[in-house]
């Protein structure tokens, strides 16, 4: 217990002794967390948007005109067996002409009953739009399938947007993460440099490497936690501000993720990410000092 108290005391002392550098570190981690947070929240919104668009992407499988009821059911069973098909709903020619005639009222009486020119069909939804082409090929092989509404273009567009959003989000997080680690490692490096004299004494009297390291790791962790907490509150204003600008200009009718709903998760994620960045930064800068001995620690 005393040791834990000592490590936290020393970690805090490190922050306090190097107030300027600590403040700069918190600021930099905050910037990175904020940018990452905004990127993640927008990525979540875009992914949701893409998913909603994907939900309405129904593929129509039109059947041959002369199929019996039994053959029609067999086609439905075979469709349901295809792995990438999420939903299969029968769409009769009567439903089809009804929907059609609502749009074109003049044709209402002309194509009812025996004169209905539409074939029966199945409305299907796919699990993974990226596998659209291969799924369509499987459907085409089924006996009794006359035609498939070709919406491959839409499927590809949606898939591409989704992939781009995910990739961009990941790259933004990765690059900002690297920048954060680099800056935190420099900040902790400065603390270590300022305290190199203490480190050399610690090593000369027989302190273990872990004992030397832990206060700096705690320092990095505390910097990360502070930055995480502050970022959560700043992110609220940044996110809501940016969202209102976007909603006014581009996506006024789209339902977006409300910050109040995700605050808890954001806080947790920010603290964890901040802690991780702080610890990583500390570990990176500690490595070289731990390998040094005696006067080398002092740079003599």
């Amino acid at each position, binding site marked *: 217990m005393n040791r834990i108290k000592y490590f936290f005391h020393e970690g805090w002392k490190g922050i306090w002794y190097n107030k300027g550098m600590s403040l700069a570190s918190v600021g930099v981690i905050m910037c990175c967390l904020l940018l990452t947070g905004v990127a993640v929240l927008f990525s979540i919104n875009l992914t949701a948007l893409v998913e909603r668009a994907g939900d309405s992407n129904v593929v129509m499988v039109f059947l041959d005109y002369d199929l019996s009821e039994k053959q029609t059911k067999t086609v439905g069973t075979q469709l349901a067996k295809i792995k990438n098909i999420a939903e299969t709903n029968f769409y009769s020619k009567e439903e089809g002409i009804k929907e059609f005639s609502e749009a074109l009222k003049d044709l209402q009486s002309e194509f009812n009953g025996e004169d209905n020119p539409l074939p029966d069909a199945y409305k299907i939804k796919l699990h993974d739009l990226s596998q659209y082409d291969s799924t369509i090929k499987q459907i085409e092989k089924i006996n009794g399938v006359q035609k498939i509404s070709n919406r491959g273009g839409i499927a590809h567009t949606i898939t591409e947007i989704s992939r781009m959003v995910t990739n961009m989000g990941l790259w933004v997080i990765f690059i900002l993460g690297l920048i954060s680690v680099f800056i935190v490692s420099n900040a902790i490096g400065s603390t270590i440099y300022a305290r190199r004299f203490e480190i050399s004494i610690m*090593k000369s009297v*027989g302190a273990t490497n872990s004992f030397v390291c832990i206060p700096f790791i705690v320092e990095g962790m505390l910097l990360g936690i502070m930055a995480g907490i502050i970022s959560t509150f700043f992110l609220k204003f940044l996110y809501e501000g940016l969202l209102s600008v976007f909603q006014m200009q581009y996506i006024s009718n789209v339902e977006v993720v409300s910050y109040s709903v995700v605050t808890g998760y954001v806080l947790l994620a920010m603290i964890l990410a901040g802690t991780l960045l702080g610890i990583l930064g500390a570990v990176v800068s500690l490595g070289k000092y731990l390998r040094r*001995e*005696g006067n080398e620690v002092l740079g003599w």
Partner: protein
Amino acid sequence: MIEFRNVTKTFEDTDTHAINGISMKIQDGELVFIVGVSGAGKSTLLKLITREQLPTSGDILIDGTYINHMSRRKVPFLRRKLGMVYQDFRLITKMTVFENIAFALRVTGKKETEIQEKVPYVLDLVGLTDKKDCHPNQLSGGEQQRVSLARALANNPKILIADEPTANIDNALSLEMMTLLKTINESGTTVLIVTHDKTLVEAIGGRVIELDKGVIISDSKPEETSDDETLQDSSIYDKLVEQAQSETDNMTTDTVSNYEEIVEQAKKELQ
């Protein structure tokens, strides 16, 4: 016991043989002076003992353990057996005297109760009890060196290593420091002192290992040292005392009385 077996240390970047095939044994409880000119290899020898550096060839044993084959993980535990006193004192200026010593105990995992008992004890040993709340920059060079010594003693080292302990203090305080080191040695601690002050070495007495270009050129053990070359030689001792006393004119009253006490004690011990 410290043992060197045909130890060589070469610095490849400068192609220098800092230590060149040294073999020696230092028994427990010995007082050993390592002397030599600059570049003789004194500091490298100390660094090899403290495992700050590894020999290029040969073996170094401390209490029967090959320290050159020791894993990095075990090095801190080796260093807890060694107490280091540096010529530049290496005290943390932000900390008080008490905190400087407590720091050395704390980082080796000592409990707070133990620290509260041990620090006053070692401060008393070096005569600095009344300075415990001072910061290093409020102390004289000699006092700072005594704090450094107290810190080295705090972990009960088996071997005390002093690297030029008198380099940055005046003659009077040098004698005081050497007398303290001798007293510590008499209590059973092995003491290794690197110095180039031959007068002090002759005055205090002990084994003297002289290095030159990384080689031991002489190793005079106490029994080999003639009486008139040691502190028992009143002529050298008196000369030092005289020199030291002349410097006391510039000292504070406290330091003078402290110094005089030590000199008196040393005189009694030698008679």
